[in-house]
């Protein structure tokens, strides 16, 4: 209730959140994977996040009580709310919403007050993920981010605006658009619109910031939307770039990466000479950097929930030490920057009426994050099954999308926060049981391949209407078993065709209504949505 909320917030102050003993001669500020969340939201971190191979049991594959134990966080503490999933609804009632780019602006400004030439770096997945971002083809985010004055950015979902739109925005950006792995697909040469790196002079140090866009863009997203570009990990080219900037006198090499955390760990182990990796894409939030060899890797969460500050002491061409803080953006504690609030509200004003329409109510906590299912995705799968009259539903295992508390209204904006994308068509098709298994094995291997360079950083495809067993330790083709049609209890027949509804197909020309209309219609009929506990996935080898 209100009393406990006040009590909790009295324990927290803006000064406490921002408290930092300025250190060394260089400051980096990292934000990433905002997914167009301009306003404060709720965001529940995952309960299930399994690491495989060498990353088994290592951060970020540690959740809940294990995570709190690892970092010495008390149950119920602000950090427990920000970084773990337990008691989420109760803690959310106490601590309130997180994020909001006007609060982020306050934090950035405060850091700049202490270190005026701090370098602000945006890890990408910025121009995607909301009603206004979709309606303005990313312009709302471009306008607001320009207000934050970043120094450089790299990319992932941005490319789903289509290469023409991306090129148009990038041509006008007042900061560097970086990607050493963004290549011209035809001639296999570095793409002209994206520099591999940019130099900054700070605190008497030459700092090179190298960009790394999401390597598997044309597989995880529709390649036909940006056919001129090729990506890939390109670790050899990365080493060439590091050597090149070192030869040009870089005393500090920073990698602004959208690889995903485990991929960045491997990259740090195969490429020598990177001091700091600011890691994005897998949406992990870590209170301390992870050290791989001489490289520190920083993970700054998603959806505007965190800002990382890294102060570095760089002398004689070497990183001598660092100080780091993952700053949670408690929206009721951090005073919004009024200029930024006005800028954000101006972007939203033309759409406010449509966005704020209440469609239904959450009967229980709706969240997305988790390797196999989330209650929000269960709602989406239920919507696909009933609205598209299908036996089986498939919903992509993306990691963006805020949470909704029990009893909270669900607005049109909330639905779009979970579904907004430029390829939203909810298809209805037939798949054989055999093909369905191929699809699921394929996605599982993109998540659980023991070699991080084969991982694409999403979660397992969400399923409705079927159950299955997965052994994450098995090789591709052998992980998925016991596929069962829940409506009959029968085993999935490899030879039989099933009616499958899904969305976010990467195929050009996919037909069907946009997923947000499907979900809205379903929620309207339900009134209050309370998805049943999902027990359809049995996980082995975790």
């Amino acid at each position, binding site marked *: 209730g209100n009393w406990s909320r006040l009590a909790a917030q009295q324990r927290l102050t803006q000064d406490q959140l921002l408290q930092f003993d300025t250190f060394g001669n260089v400051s980096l500020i990292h934000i990433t994977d905002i997914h167009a969340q301009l306003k404060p939201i709720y965001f529940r971190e995952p309960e299930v996040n399994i690491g495989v191979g060498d990353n088994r049991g290592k951060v970020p594959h540690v959740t809940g009580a294990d995570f709190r134990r690892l970092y010495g966080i008390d149950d119920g503490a602000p950090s427990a709310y920000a970084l773990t999933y337990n008691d989420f609804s109760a803690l959310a009632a106490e601590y309130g919403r997180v994020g909001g780019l006007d609060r982020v602006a306050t934090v950035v400004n405060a850091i700049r007050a202490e270190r005026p030439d701090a370098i602000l770096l945006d890890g990408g997945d910025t121009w995607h993920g909301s009603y206004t971002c979709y309606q303005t083809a990313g312009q709302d985010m471009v306008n607001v981010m320009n207000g934050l004055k970043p120094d450089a950015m790299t990319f992932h979902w941005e490319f789903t605006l289509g290469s023409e739109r991306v090129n148009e925005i990038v041509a006008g950006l007042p900061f560097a658009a970086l990607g050493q792995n963004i290549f011209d697909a035809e001639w296999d040469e570095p793409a002209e619109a994206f520099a591999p790196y940019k130099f900054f002079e700070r605190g008497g140090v030459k700092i090179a910031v190298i960009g790394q866009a999401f390597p598997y863009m044309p597989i995880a997203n529709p390649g036909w939307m940006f056919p001129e570009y090729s990506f890939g990990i390109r670790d050899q080219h990365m080493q060439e770039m590091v050597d090149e900037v070192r030869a040009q006198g870089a005393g500090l090499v920073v990698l602004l990466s959208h690889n995903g955390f485990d991929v960045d760990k491997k990259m740090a182990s195969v490429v020598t000479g990177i001091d700091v990796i600011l890691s994005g894409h897998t949406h992990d939030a870590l209170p301390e950097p992870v050290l791989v060899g001489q490289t520190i890797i920083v993970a700054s969460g998603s959806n505007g929930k965190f800002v990382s500050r890294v102060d570095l002491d760089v002398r004689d061409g070497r990183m001598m030490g660092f100080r780091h803080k993952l700053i949670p953006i408690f929206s009721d504690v951090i005073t919004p920057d009024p200029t930024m609030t006005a800028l954000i509200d101006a972007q939203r004003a033309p759409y406010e009426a449509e966005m704020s329409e209440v469609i239904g109510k959450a009967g229980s906590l709706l969240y997305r994050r988790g390797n196999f299912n989330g209650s929000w995705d269960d709602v989406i799968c239920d919507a696909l099954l009933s609205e598209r009259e299908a036996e089986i539903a498939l919903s992509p295992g993306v990691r963006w999308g805020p949470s909704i508390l029990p009893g909270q209204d669900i607005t049109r904006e909330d639905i779009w926060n979970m579904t907004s994308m430029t390829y939203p068509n909810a298809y209805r098709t037939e798949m054989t049981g055999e093909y369905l298994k191929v699809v699921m094995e394929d996605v599982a291997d993109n998540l659980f391949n023991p070699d991080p360079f084969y991982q*694409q950083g999403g979660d397992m495809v969400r399923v409705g209407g079927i159950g299955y067993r997965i052994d994450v330790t098995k090789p591709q083709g052998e992980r998925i078993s016991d596929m069962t049609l829940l409506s009959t209890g029968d085993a999935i027949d490899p030879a039989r065709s099933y009616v499958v509804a899904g969305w976010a197909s990467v195929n050009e020309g996919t037909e069907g209504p946009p997923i947000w209309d499907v979900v809205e219609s379903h929620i309207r009929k339900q009134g209050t949505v309370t998805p049943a506990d999902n027990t359809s996935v049995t996980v082995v080898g975790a």
Partner: protein
Amino acid sequence: GAGAALVSFLPFRANAAAVDDLIAEFTGGAEMADRGVELIAPEIAENGNTVPIEVSAPGASAILVLAAGNPTPPVAKFAFGPLAGSQTASTRIRLAGTQDVIAIAQLGDGTFARTSKTIKVTIGGCGG
């Protein structure tokens, strides 16, 4: 997105006998060393219809490339002339599913070397 519903996409069984015959035809049945030829290819193909590969074998007269899991395994044979600046070549190939790509070089001394690499051709994940 994992809803790549319309792509027909089943793994092909490698045609081992055909591959062995093609190799024997190129090498005359000679032994193959596992050093002397290099094959560079992505871990995961962005698009199975156009997968970049690079083969390299210093001093080689020719390099044969085979895709063991394609319905017909031959891909290309690169013969290097006197003005080749290096015995290296890049091209883009079609792969009908995840499989091993094999490169065999006839080296300057007439001996042979072989290497292979698994390239994954995937329907796609979903992403963070």
